[in-house]
């Protein structure tokens, strides 16, 4: 690694005000939204043009310096944590919507475009961009692509990957490739889909072609209160099993309700142990028919109270509470850990009951506010970092929740990614062979492991891995290579 070589080349090419080197300038980039991790990069490049990104990646490759692409730094898994003494390539200024074609329902954007800005630009045409992470006011499409981010409205039309049709990418060794295109369909391996969710380990997305959807004619938003978290979870399972396909299905527990109320006065019932938001969307006549069906299912799930949004303002209020709940809970406690595991929807009630029990066992408060419709939990574990041992207890509790998700047949992460934080849990989801193949694929795209080095794979990775051993069957003499 020749850091000085890289920096002097960059200094020659980039104006000084866009190549941050001073300690005070670097401080804001030391961590992402998972502030438990910190590390200081050697420099931050504020890129303004795609060419600059390509050039920076090529120089990093030439001088062997690791780099991390960064959008808005809202990652909750340490995904955009800098590599110590590496380069951060900040993409916020690459924020142009290059093309919006309402007839074909696509938008071509640069990676630094803010998620919500795509929907804003599409709105005059009656269109919107469906994936809506709670952070959509600040997070970037590039970050969304890297993490395959989701949101409350990803139940019906899918996560980021379902809405990305094409990509222009600079791979970590400097090659620029075009993947997919403008059609909904493609031929050959789905390379676009393969890049989405690769957590910045393959290279940097420079241009993204997004699919837009027409705004539904109408919504019906139901707010049901339950006497226990488990009952709300069971209600979700019955709605899913009933064959209805809501646009969103979200749960908040008492702690989350309290926090959301304090923050935005959403008018939620205060005495509920859990709230379930179910939203139907589509053509009015169909939605009315579904609504009648939904109310039957909800009534059969033993709710304490049921309310229906009267108008758009009422609906907006319900969603405002939900979307701010996450950061509102954050305000209840200085320190918290968020988990992002997934369980089968039919096991939600059981999973939530287990989390409640663990919370009591560990003596730590846990708030739940999450995408219930696809079984994606978001327990927020509150702790006080100044009390010795509490962080460790919180981490142990988080680990137990993750193990529960795996034991139930789920996943360690639904949308926040593995990043730095969940690296050590990968082996409980994947075999050594699975991880080996993933690592080989990574090195095929990034031979020197420069892009976001140290993320996703357990225990950080040494570039030189052991040579391929024989297949286990070969070792046993069962089979042999010709």
């Amino acid at each position, binding site marked *: 690694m020749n850091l000085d070589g890289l920096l002097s080349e960059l200094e020659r090419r980039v104006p000084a005000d866009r190549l941050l080197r001073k300690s005070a300038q670097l401080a804001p980039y030391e961590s992402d939204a998972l502030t438990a991790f910190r590390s200081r990069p050697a420099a931050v490049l504020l890129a303004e043009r795609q060419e600059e990104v390509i050039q920076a990646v090529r120089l990093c490759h030439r001088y062997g310096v690791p780099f991390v692409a960064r959008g808005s730094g809202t990652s909750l898994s340490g995904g955009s944590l800098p590599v110590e003494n590496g380069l951060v390539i900040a993409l916020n200024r690459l924020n142009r919507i290059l093309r919006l074609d309402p007839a074909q329902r696509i938008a071509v954007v640069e990676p630094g475009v803010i998620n919500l800005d795509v929907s804003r630009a599409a709105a005059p045409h009656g269109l919107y961009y469906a994936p809506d992470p709670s952070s959509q006011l600040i997070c970037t499409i590039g970050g969304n692509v890297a993490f395959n981010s989701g949101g409350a409205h990803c139940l019906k039309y899918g996560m980021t990957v379902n809405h990305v049709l094409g990509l222009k990418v600079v791979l970590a060794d400097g090659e620029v490739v075009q993947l997919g295109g403008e059609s909904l369909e*493609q031929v050959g391996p789905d390379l676009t889909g393969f890049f989405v969710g690769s957590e910045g380990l393959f290279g940097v997305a420079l241009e993204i072609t997004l699919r837009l959807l027409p705004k539904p004619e109408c919504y019906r938003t139901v707010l049901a209160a339950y006497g226990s978290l488990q009952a709300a979870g069971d209600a979700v399972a019955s709605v899913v099993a009933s064959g209805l396909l809501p646009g969103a299905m979200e749960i908040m527990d008492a702690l989350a309700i309290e926090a959301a109320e304090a923050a935005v006065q959403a008018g939620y019932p205060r005495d509920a142990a859990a709230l379930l938001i179910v939203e139907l969307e589509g053509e009015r006549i169909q939605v009315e028919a579904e609504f009648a069906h939904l109310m039957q299912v909800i009534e059969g799930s033993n709710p304490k109270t049921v309310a229906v949004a009267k108008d758009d303002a009422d609906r907006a209020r319900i969603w405002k509470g939900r979307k701010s709940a996450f950061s509102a809970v954050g305000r209840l406690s200085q320190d918290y850990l968020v988990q992002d595991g997934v369980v089968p929807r039919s096991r939600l009630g059981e999973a939530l009951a287990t989390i409640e029990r663990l919370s009591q066992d560990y003596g730590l408060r846990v708030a739940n506010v999450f995408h219930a419709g696809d079984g994606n939990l978001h327990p927020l574990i509150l702790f006080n970092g100044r009390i010795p041992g509490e962080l460790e207890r919180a981490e142990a509790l988080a680990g137990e929740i993750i193990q529960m998700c795996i034991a139930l047949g789920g996943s360690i992460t639904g949308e926040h990614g593995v990043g730095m934080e969940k690296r050590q849990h990968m082996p409980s989801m994947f075999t050594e062979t699975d991880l080996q193949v993933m690592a080989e694929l990574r090195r095929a795209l990034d031979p020197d492991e420069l892009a976001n080095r140290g993320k996703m794979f357990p225990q950080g990775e040494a570039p030189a891995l052991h040579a391929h051993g024989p297949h286990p069957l070969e070792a046993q003499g069962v089979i042999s290579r010709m």
Partner: protein
Amino acid sequence: MTTLTILAPQCYEDVQAAICEHGRIFVRGASSKPALAPPSVDGDNAALLDMRGLRGVVEYEPGEFVFTARAGSSLREIAALLAEHGQHLPFDPPLVDQGATLGGTIAAGLSGSGRHRYGGLRDFLIGVRFVDGQGRLVRGGGKVVKNAAGFDLPKLMIGSLGRLGVIVEASFKAFPQPPAYATLRVTQPSLDAALTTIARLNGSNFDLEALDLVFEEERPTLYVRQGGFAAALAERQERLRSWLGGGEPLPEPEEAAFWSAGREFTWAPTTWALVKTPVTLSVLPALDQVLQAAGAQRRYVAGAALAWIAWPGDLGHLDAYLIQLQLGGLVLRGEAEWPFVGVRNGASLIARVKRVLDPFHRFPIL
């Protein structure tokens, strides 16, 4: 030259062993896409894996709307099982009646007209297990509808044509099947008019299950499919009809027959080549001109995102036309040495992936 050894693996270990024991490996499901099928004869030490013995549903909990099945399972049996519980794969996988297998559908990367609303195969495949060219059994993705852990290996298997690995098992999410469907047939005065109508529908908030453009005696005709509760359907269709300014509802038996004929390609002459080409609204006028002039039959499905082309002549000519238009295609039927026509994106990335999954060149080139 020797004849190809045909093997019918019964378990995943059989597939691993077959790969490690042979220098060259070809895979076939039900050969419903013969142009993608392996040659009947090849050099030494080559084996053809007939995957149909590796069948059966591994896991299916209807309330979960997720199933896992072995790759040789026929789509027909899967569709029947899902239908018992009012569920389906909404992307309309083609060639169900002709015996297409789950693995063959993934490896060919095919979605049909129903991909219009909720997305294609890529949006419903949530996990795979496959054996790579080194005989390693690899898993990617998972069994829950949402999962961001690890690289998305299932995406690599989509359209991989048995050339990156042998798929042995796959997990899909399923959707509730609409209890009823209704289709409006709308003839159009010209192709331009038809494309304008599609663009208008794209910007509208009608929820359409499918939107196909076909040619009936060269007359562009739109088939617009809605789905949902039967009670609401008639009114929805009428609203759509008046918005479109016309259209004729298809009677019940014809409705289902039209969409199943599309899925099975009964409209395409069996001796002609059959080619899948991803398209966009803006490229269609130029493409259609070429196809019409060549006497090809064609359907533009999923809101004109996907062209199915039945090509009467030499595929080399189609290849040249597609290159001019910067389009790419996949040959499903016909005399083709190489299944791809037209331009291809990302070839260098595919080569990099291929070196990892098939370093000994056991599978055909991709």
